């Protein structure tokens, strides 16, 4: 008897929590909320770090908590807590109601939760299928060993992290959803050094919902890639600054579109008034060779999801079609405040963040050219084979480091160059993407923004930008 009483008064993962969730939502609606959303999570994460020939860090972590969001009109109040008891959740609802200063008597109707949509059924076994720490450690050590036989490599690191997130989402529109999300990522980093010369190289791989993926990772190829990259750049000269045409490589080259344009197509940017594309729907904002997509459905891709953090299945959104702006990336608050329909893009790092409109797998669609066509079309320019990180300022200027770059002279790749930075603004650069290759590939990454760090995929084929500012020495 005591046991059943306790269960009915707190969230229990793997059990039916419908009665308790309905009671909490009724409570919020009864106090005058227009909308109540409850997001509850239970996480089981671990990470492993191999340095040189040793495992130097194994870090498991567990977390559980709830994020409760209340809307009144277009305002929202968000409260997060680690307390998953009925008392704790109701206290959070009360706090959110109080924050919003809800005093009117107008009451929304809550008809109870819909039938449970359980996306986790086939995923409960994942925790037993992911590689053990022992298995991960062995493979990471083999990976760093591949990089051992060269005395110019002074630092070798392999890292793995796994995130298993079990979520329950319930809201006053009847949404009642459960899901389990699995993300695994593995990376290799090296630093090479010879006298005064230094270079670094890195590669990262990632997947979602594929417990076996780490076992299939071709660590020898990854090690060869990262080694080759660092060696190519070790004696590179600094690039001369200036305006020039560039070719951006496929895969992670897509980070520029993600940062410089993708964020400006999120409804949070419309809400803030910080996107130059706010009133450009169905207008040309890019070269006609550019079609860009954001979706959450590619199987195994790092940004894919069965259901977003607001309980909506992700859709495939064509953002730009042949240079014409077609759609914005929207979440519940975005729809409420800007009128753009939700796209299954309400995402958050964890329970302590309210969901926001965020990208998932975002890429420029493939074109018809080969990589060689793009390079051959340039008499003097820069080939950006591997991109580092980047950022976008509050008024849309972007800045990206080129990790591995080569000069293009008379249509051929020539010497490697370091220290290059690509600088520009999305609305000026998008019309200058004049050629898209036929070799679209995706790459995993983490995107930090208003609702924390979320897993995403960036991607593109090789693309040519007719002119861009290259920062150097």
């Amino acid at each position, binding site marked *: 008897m005591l046991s059943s009483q306790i269960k009915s008064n707190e969230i229990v993962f793997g059990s039916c929590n419908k009665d308790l969730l309905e009671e909490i939502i009724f409570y919020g609606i009864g106090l005058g909320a227009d909308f109540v959303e409850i997001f509850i999570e239970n996480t089981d994460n671990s990470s492993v770090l191999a340095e040189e020939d*040793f*495992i*130097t*860090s*194994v*870090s*498991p*972590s*567990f*977390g*559980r*908590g709830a994020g409760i969001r209340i809307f009144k009109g277009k*305002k929202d*109040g*968000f*409260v*997060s*807590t*680690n307390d998953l008891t009925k008392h704790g959740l109701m206290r959070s609802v009360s*706090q959110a109601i*109080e*924050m*919003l*200063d809800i005093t009117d008597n107008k009451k929304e109707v809550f008809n109870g939760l819909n039938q449970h949509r359980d996306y986790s059924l086939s995923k409960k076994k994942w925790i037993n299928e992911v590689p053990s*720490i*022992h298995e991960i*450690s062995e493979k990471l050590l083999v990976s760093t060993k591949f990089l051992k036989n060269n005395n110019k490599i002074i*630092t070798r690191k392999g890292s793995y992290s796994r995130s298993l997130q079990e979520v329950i989402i319930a809201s006053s529109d009847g949404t009642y959803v459960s899901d389990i999300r699995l993300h695994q990522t593995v990376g290799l980093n090296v*630093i090479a050094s010879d006298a005064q010369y*230094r*270079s*670094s190289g890195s590669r990262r791989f990632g997947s979602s919902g594929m417990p076996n993926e780490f076992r299939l990772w071709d660590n020898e190829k990854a090690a060869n890639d990262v080694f080759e990259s660092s060696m190519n750049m070790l004696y590179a000269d600094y690039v001369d*600054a*200036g305006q020039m045409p560039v070719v951006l490589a496929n895969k992670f080259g897509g980070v520029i579109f993600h940062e410089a344009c993708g964020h400006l197509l999120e409804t949070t940017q419309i*809400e*803030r*008034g*910080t996107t130059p594309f706010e009133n450009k729907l169905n207008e040309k904002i890019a070269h006609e060779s550019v079609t860009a997509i954001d979706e959450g459905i590619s199987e195994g891709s790092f940004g894919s999801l069965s259901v977003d953090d607001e309980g909506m299945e992700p859709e495939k959104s064509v953002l730009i079609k042949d240079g014409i702006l077609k759609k914005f990336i929207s979440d519940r608050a975005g729809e409420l405040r800007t009128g753009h329909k939700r796209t299954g893009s309400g995402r958050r790092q964890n329970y*302590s963040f*309210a969901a926001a409109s965020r990208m998932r797998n975002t890429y420029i669609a493939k074109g018809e050219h080969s990589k060689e066509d793009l390079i051959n079309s340039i008499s003097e320019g820069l080939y950006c084979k591997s991109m*580092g*990180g*980047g*950022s976008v*300022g*509050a*008024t849309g200027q972007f*800045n*990206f*480091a080129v990790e591995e770059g080569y000069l293009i002279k008379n249509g051929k790749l020539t010497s490697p160059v*370091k*220290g*290059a*930075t690509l*600088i520009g603004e999305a609305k000026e650069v998008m019309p200058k993407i004049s050629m898209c290759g036929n070799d679209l590939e995706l790459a995993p990454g983490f995107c930090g923004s208003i609702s924390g760090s979320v897993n995403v995929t960036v991607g593109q084929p090789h693309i040519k930008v007719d002119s861009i*500012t*290259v*920062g*150097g*020495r």
Partner: protein
Amino acid sequence: MNSREITTQISKAADLLNLKKWDYGASFSNDYSVQVDRGEAKQLKASQKQILTLRVWNQSNLVGITTTSDISESGIKKALKQANIASDFGNKNETTEFSPLAKDPIKVKEVKKRNPVGIKKLLTLLRGAEVKLIESHESIKSVPYNGLSESFFERVYANSEGAFRSYTKSQASLYLYARAEEKNKKPRSSGSVKLGYGVEDIDIETCIKEASNKTISHLNYSSIKTDKYLICFSPESFLTIINAFSSMFNARSILDGVSLSNKNSIGEKLSTEALNIYDDGLHEKNISSSPFDGEGTPTKRLCLINKGRIENFIHSESTARIFKTIPTGHAGLGSKVSVSPDWIVVEKSEENFDLKTSLDHSTYEGEFVYIEELNAIHAGVRASQGSFSLPFDGWLYKNGKKISIDSATVAGDIKYLFKNIVNIESSQEITTSGISPHIWVDELSITGDA
């Protein structure tokens, strides 16, 4: 459970699991924040957070760790068990011990206790600040990035040898980033951040004024010719650079091979003898100060550069043991313990005869670039290689005129930058990340549009 009860609970659970040696760090916080959008409340947020990081040592003296937000009896047991499992993979080549200073006395700053003002008050204050900022100039159309928050937290460190220390604290912050637009010109954005122990300590008027002045001053901009320039770094931008390359003074980074320094770099001349740099987490102006680090080591002032030469590295317990010194109070708490600086203080030493003292940002009449704020640090700094290429907000001073610079980057090498410091102004300024005077550097590359 309070922190004493948690310690007792961990001790009991560890006994049951036959774990003799353990330590933990925990934090408990209540945070409140508001954002506004043109007079309306945009998002109101509150959170109650608790997080516990536990380390255990197995019979081979190898360390395992687990982090959890479940501080129930069962959560603590589970965390101890998982940490014990993880200890099987503990690093045999670099052991970790308790800090030898974990029971030394700590200096806790006397700060008057602040109470939460509550969401409604935060909202009223921020609404008022937004209105004032928009009304301060006709070109300021919105304040797209803004926030006012207050946080109340407790931090704890304890270990199985009886060390126990905790402190409670409050902190509040206000940020206002305005956006200004004028016809046929690019929008410009700039802002200001203020910290205090409580909301009542925050100088809201100054924050509004700074955000307004900075934003408006950049409305009339021009591109700059790509070339090498004499640069004057503002205190904030120089501290940004020093923090970005703090791996030069970081023993952990040195051992990991990702620092420009090595074990023998103590005494190496980096710069003019006029340069002193300290890390001073307990400085009276550091609102974010903590009296002890993740391993329980007391925080203290440490000289990093003395008269242009590297004087000390910052350490955790394990790096200090390897370097045959003592921990400096800069450690985190992890399976592999990280090390990071607290609060940098830059000053002019007594040996300042080689400086070009005519270089003063308020009086110098020659051509130079003033770097007000550096951006995109995570993308543009390669700390292990020493290079940087960073966009900045700033001005070109030329022919007696001051012109805002349109989208440009400054690039260089940190050792070159140190060597080319030509003046350190006398007057220091307090920022959110430390204290520094204006610093002048000769011949740095700037890439502009022209």
